[in-house]
């Protein structure tokens, strides 16, 4: 059961990370094309930079950053200070670990619900980006994908931290 859940969380985190990576590479490719296009502007042959590339970059980058959150959560990539780690008894460390994972789950859930509220606002007002005039809610909707994955993976991490309290689980499972 736990194995299946782990594979599920790992699958979500990896797929979203690669999706975000593909977005990054798309941003790089479009930026390079746009810069090359800009070089042709003085020739006046109708080739120029991509219109609204900055709007696209911002929106796509937000989607990528949201998509990167789950892998960071799953593989414990958050910045922490390890000053007193070794001086704490293991049992205390595990309780704190569970607590912090649960808090991260809470933060992820509230943050995503508020993002969804923001999405509804932007759909209602029909706000668009300045130059490309893309609806801003597109960016919010794209961000929801990664944010939802973040909740699911944070949920799994909380479960994992809870199971780690049991000695039998620690012995039975390799540390994943």
């Amino acid at each position, binding site marked *: 059961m736990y194995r299946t859940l782990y594979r599920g969380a790992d699958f979500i985190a*990896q797929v979203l*990370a*690669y999706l*975000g*990576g593909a977005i*990054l590479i798309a*941003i*790089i*490719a479009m*930026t*390079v094309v*746009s*810069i090359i296009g800009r070089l042709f502007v003085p020739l006046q042959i109708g080739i120029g930079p991509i219109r609204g590339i*900055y709007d696209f*970059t*911002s*929106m796509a*980058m*937000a989607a*990528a*950053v*949201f*998509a*990167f*959150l789950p*892998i*960071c*959560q799953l*593989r414990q*990539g*958050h*910045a*922490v*200070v*390890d*000053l*007193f*780690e070794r001086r*704490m008894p293991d049992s205390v*460390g595990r309780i*704190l*670990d569970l607590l*912090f994972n649960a*808090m*991260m789950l809470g*933060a992820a859930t*509230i*943050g995503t619900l*508020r*993002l969804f*509220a*923001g999405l509804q*606002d932007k759909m209602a007002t029909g706000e668009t980006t300045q130059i490309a005039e893309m609806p801003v809610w597109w*960016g*919010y909707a794209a*961000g929801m994908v990664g944010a939802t994955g973040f909740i699911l993976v944070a949920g799994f991490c909380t479960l994992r931290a809870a199971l780690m309290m049991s000695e039998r689980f620690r012995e039975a499972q390799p540390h994943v």
Partner: protein
Amino acid sequence: MSNFDLALWSFPVLLFLVFLRMPIALAMIVCGVGGTWLVIGTPMMTLNQLKSLTYGTFSNYSFSIIPLFLLMGQFATVSGMSADLFRAAASFLGHRRGGVAMSAVGACAGFGAICGSSLATAATMGRVALPELRQYGYPGSLSTGALAAGGTLGILIPPSVILVIYAILVEQNIEKLFVAAIIPGLLAALGYIVAISIWVRVYPNSAALRDRVPWGERLQALAKVWPVLVIFAAVVGGIYFGVFTPTEAAAVGAAGTGLVAAFGGKLGWSELRESILTTAMSTAMIFLIILGAGIYNNFLGLTQLPQTAAAWVGDQGFSPWFVLWIVLVMYLLFGCVMDSLSMVLLTVPIVFPIMSSLDFGMSPGDFGLWFGILVLIVVEVGLITPPVGMNLFIINSMARDIPIRDTYAGALPFVLTDILRVIVLTLFPAITLSLVWALN
């Protein structure tokens, strides 16, 4: 409890949570949301802000430079350029006393010009140079110390992720900051090389010499590192001369290093996937900290702490230089235990208004550049000091037979050159600023 007291008490609470090993970003969010709740009596304001704050932070065009630089650093890491740089540096320096360690530092400086992260630089150059250092009989302490210190050149030499963050926080020109970082970065490399040279003279038996390399081969080795020079010139020069925005320059740099790696046959599917996963983790970590610091600083702003603190410091009639030294020493001490990025994000919004209200006899623009470089150096020293020097841990994990105590001891001479450099750059701001002035 007044709002001001709340803000003051939030610092020890934040530190306490962080020392319990709560992720730093989460601790900032908790203190920021909790503090705001206490000040205005309801969580509604924060909840309202959160509708657009997270998306607004993640979609900020200025911040989009960060993932691109991180990916560029990953491509540089797999490209094999680190090995070419090391060979080129070794062909010039290898036959000198301490030459292999000096070459490692020189190669780190070159790698720092295309990589904005200290840990990546230390890890990459460690893999390349550590075997050779051991082969030539360098003591473990000198080997790991030199590589850990050399790694900090990744961030001291532009491009640099921390400088980007600082520039955005205090609304400075990223292009000018990058230029201002060049001379101090080169001085850092020079200082490390001098430290090695002194070391091998104090302990003459500590290293074997490499054979002298003829000039023909030296030039050949040098010719192989041209992509590094081209990419650095395109990125930093392109930003400075206004050819690109910083984000565009980072995209060009990532494309360039990616192509170099791909044409060198080093960027297969597995390397690409690894590069993306590493970039994804670092990006998520950094953006969560940026978000957390934003929420926490909103709370501090609400309590007027930055203004009150600036006014208080102004009223005390301290000499500006005295305040500056205190601030730098505090950064140095905190840097030993805190993550440098978190520290910059947490403190600069409070410290910068205080510092810029003091008169150092220079224009606000110049002050912003100079202070940024000083802060960058002092927070990076924390990477090579105990107890939480990340660069030391990374290098030490590659050489399990060297006790961590030796690595700490080996880093000490390099820390001393860092401190010496901070003192010199503080006393003579013109060293940092002259290149900016010259190019203006």
